[in-house]
């Protein structure tokens, strides 16, 4: 058996790639694991197989910027385990991986989680109907196969991603039926005080403004200050309805609806591993508590990238760098003072990359309606549990998320509560007049991803072979 790596990194997006490259520079043995068959993460998905074609042009300059780092990492000597699904992590950092039909385990004294963000759960009446997809899901199809929906699509949501997606969609010849902008109008005045500080990141602001301008120029209906949406249909989406703040319900036919209400750090791994978390009211999410080097409350377990708090691709790359410097220091590859010196410049750049954040967080702060869906709205789609069932269960004496889970089965399905966890916590917080931070989140039970009984049975053989 060959000795394991010094560091395992989960996630080959900007953070994981930067960290792996930097650690290799320091002579650290690295294994980088990702679900996708190639490097790039979400933002640079498919970058290694892309050419200079219409798709790459449509995806834009920020996308094409991933090609260089991917090539550098390939040449770095990091062990890459791609198309590999991590389904469980145990203490001592035993990482259980499934690659094709093979299940196995990699161990290392240091684990860096760079597994990014997930779309914020966004339940509304009819969101589980075929024809309703998340913008993130649609963008994955676009990046992997250049696919755009055949029929004109409605986009409903807020944040940079819908704007970016719509720009990319139009560039690839897709058709938009309209954009229901769900960012509350009052956000604007709340964001304004953050604007001067955000000017440091004027390039990002300019990008956003340009997307919006391109969209307006097409003459597609853009309906602002939408407070509520509903999807209706028998077996699939047929109609959408929306209501502007203080306005009446308006319906129209629709075949595809793409919805999105921002992204939140993926905290399932860190929650499952018992790390301390804090409630971030600015981004309305939980995030692992980290020190200056990205280390969690559990020794040897680090987090970099959007999993540490939403900051975008550039911030993720820089956090990857800084964390790698911290890990190299931990491994004795550099002294305390040398690490501090090396981290100086990336820290400065990180501050610049995060300068627009308070402005964007305030501007795209999700409307309150998504956190307290109407009584009959399905909250847990795996187990088909409605908002009303959750509130009823809590009233009957099971006040915390875990008791509600036991009573209603919400969060017990294959997605492990990734789709309903926040909604359940928000519903309980509202009902009990507590903060979401005090209510907490589901206790995350393993495995972190579903694994078959046959796969688990095979693990035994693997281990005895070690």
């Amino acid at each position, binding site marked *: 058996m060959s000795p394991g790596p010094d560091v395992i990194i989960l996630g080959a997006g900007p953070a994981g790639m930067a960290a792996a490259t930097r650690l290799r520079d320091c002579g650290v043995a690295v294994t980088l694991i990702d679900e996708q068959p190639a490097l790039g993460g979400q933002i640079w998905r498919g970058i290694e197989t892309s050419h200079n074609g219409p798709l790459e042009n449509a995806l834009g300059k920020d996308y094409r910027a991933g090609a260089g780092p991917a090539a550098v990492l390939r040449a770095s000597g990091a062990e890459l385990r791609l198309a590999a699904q991590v389904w469980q992590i145990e203490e001592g950092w035993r990482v259980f991986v499934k690659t094709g039909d093979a299940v196995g385990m990699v161990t290392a004294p240091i684990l860096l989680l760079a597994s990014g963000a997930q779309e914020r759960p966004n339940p509304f009446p009819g969101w589980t109907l075929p024809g309703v997809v998340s913008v993130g899901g649609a963008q994955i199809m676009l990046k992997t196969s250049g696919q755009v929906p055949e029929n004109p699509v409605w986009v409903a949501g807020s944040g940079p991603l819908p704007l970016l997606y719509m720009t990319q969609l139009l560039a690839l010849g897709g058709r938009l039926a309209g954009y229901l902008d769900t960012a509350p109008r009052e956000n604007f005045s709340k964001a304004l005080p953050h604007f001067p500080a955000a000017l440091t990141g004027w390039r990002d602001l300019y990008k956003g403004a340009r997307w919006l301008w391109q969209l307006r120029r097409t003459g597609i209906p853009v309906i602002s200050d939408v407070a509520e949406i509903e999807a209706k249909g028998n077996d699939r989406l047929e109609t959408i309805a929306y209501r502007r703040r203080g306005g009446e319900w308006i319906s129209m036919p629709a075949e595809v609806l793409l919805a999105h209400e921002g992204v939140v750090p993926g905290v399932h791994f860190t929650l499952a591993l018992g790390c301390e978390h804090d409630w971030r009211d600015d981004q309305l999410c939980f995030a692992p508590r980290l020190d200056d080097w990205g280390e969690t409350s559990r020794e040897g377990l680090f987090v970099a990238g959007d999993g540490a708090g939403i900051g975008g691709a550039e911030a993720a790359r820089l956090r990857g760098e800084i964390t790698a410097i911290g890990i190299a220091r931990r491994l004795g590859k550099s002294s305390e003072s040398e690490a501090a010196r090396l981290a100086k410049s990336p820290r400065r750049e990180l501050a610049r990359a995060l300068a627009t954040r308070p402005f964007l967080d305030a501007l795209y702060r999700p409307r309150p309606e998504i956190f307290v869906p109407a009584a009959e709205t399905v909250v847990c789609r795996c187990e088909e549990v409605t908002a009303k069932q959750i509130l009823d269960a809590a009233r009957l*004496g099971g006040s915390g998320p875990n008791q509600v889970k036991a009573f209603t089965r919400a969060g*017990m*399905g*294959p997605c492990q509560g990734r789709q309903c966890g926040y909604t359940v916590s928000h519903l309980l917080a509202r009902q009990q007049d507590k903060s979401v931070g005090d209510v907490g989140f589901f206790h995350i039970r393993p495995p972190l991803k*579903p694994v078959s*009984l046959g796969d688990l049975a095979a693990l*035994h053989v693997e281990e005895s072979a070690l």
Partner: protein
Amino acid sequence: MIASVYDAVVIGGGLHGLSAALHLARGGARVTLLERSWLGRHASGASAAGVRTLGRDFAEVPLALEAMTMWHEISALVGDDCGFHAHGQVRVAENRAELQVLEQRHSALRSLGYDHEEIVDARELKRLLPHVAPHCIGAAVARDNGAADPHRTLRAFRRAAEAAGVTLRENCGVEAIERAGECWRLRTACGVFEAPNLVNAAGAWAGEVAALVGDRIPLGTKASMMIVTERMNPLVKPVVSSVGRPLSLKQTDQGTLLIGGGVQGRFDLKKEEATVDFAALSKAARTVSELFPVVRDVRIVRAWAGLEAKTVDLLPVIGLSPNAPGVAHAFGFSGHGFQLVPVVGAAIAELVLHGGTNRPIAAFDARRLMAKEAAA
């Protein structure tokens, strides 16, 4: 600080604590139950909820048979059927030697006058379990056995206890216990309580509680792991176990498979945590996929481990404390306490209210364990 005074304080909000509290309150006592975290947090909420007389230690059989009768009328006790279905329990023999073990046990039971188990051949086994692997040659069966829904059972006992007048207190850990005249005085996270009677149903931490009243009872810990899968087509109706290897398999009303049987996870009693060890859990996955090859592609959705106390002889401690007046113990069920819940609560209530019980609990006296410790 002024103490709240009760006739009895139950320590531990698992099913055994709830059952004892319920029976005590029905018997006319003023009862409060103190739970350090939330009701059913550990073994009770993590249970496979098997309702089984099959394969029990002979010492437990009489009590288990009475409990089985109670399970068949569980609605009368707690106003809900607790999701109990009597689809039977089947203990599979994979070879001649295993079948012989079952047959020997069966004739020993017969000679004691028990007829709740029967031996079936390969053909009847195939009828009971159509998907079982063909190498299985027979089984022991208890047809009136089955399984319940643990969360539903918790909810039912909780509601019944409250309806009977029990004051349930969650997030209320006991910090100290001292003698105060004829009473016990408990300092807790939610105030001071006094009562002449205590019930120790503190599960994995029952040894610590016993020590607070002066009983040194050596206990081990179990962190039995469970797997639940995604929903699948009907696979089994009875609960299945195996003679030769640790396994318990059942299919829930939702169609998910619940797989356990005693494979042990890791635990930390101080942190009140049990964690899953997948390398160890793979044994259970291997057993179930060898006995039921059709499940190989079924995905595991969750796994967990529940904490409880185990004794050296794997029999529970049920009875009055040999040292501390008015204290009754009910713990150490060693992985098979769920079925006994209704009857043990009744026995504990008798002990507390009348000072004795006719139920056969002599084998569960704490002194058998304390003597061993003293001798060691």
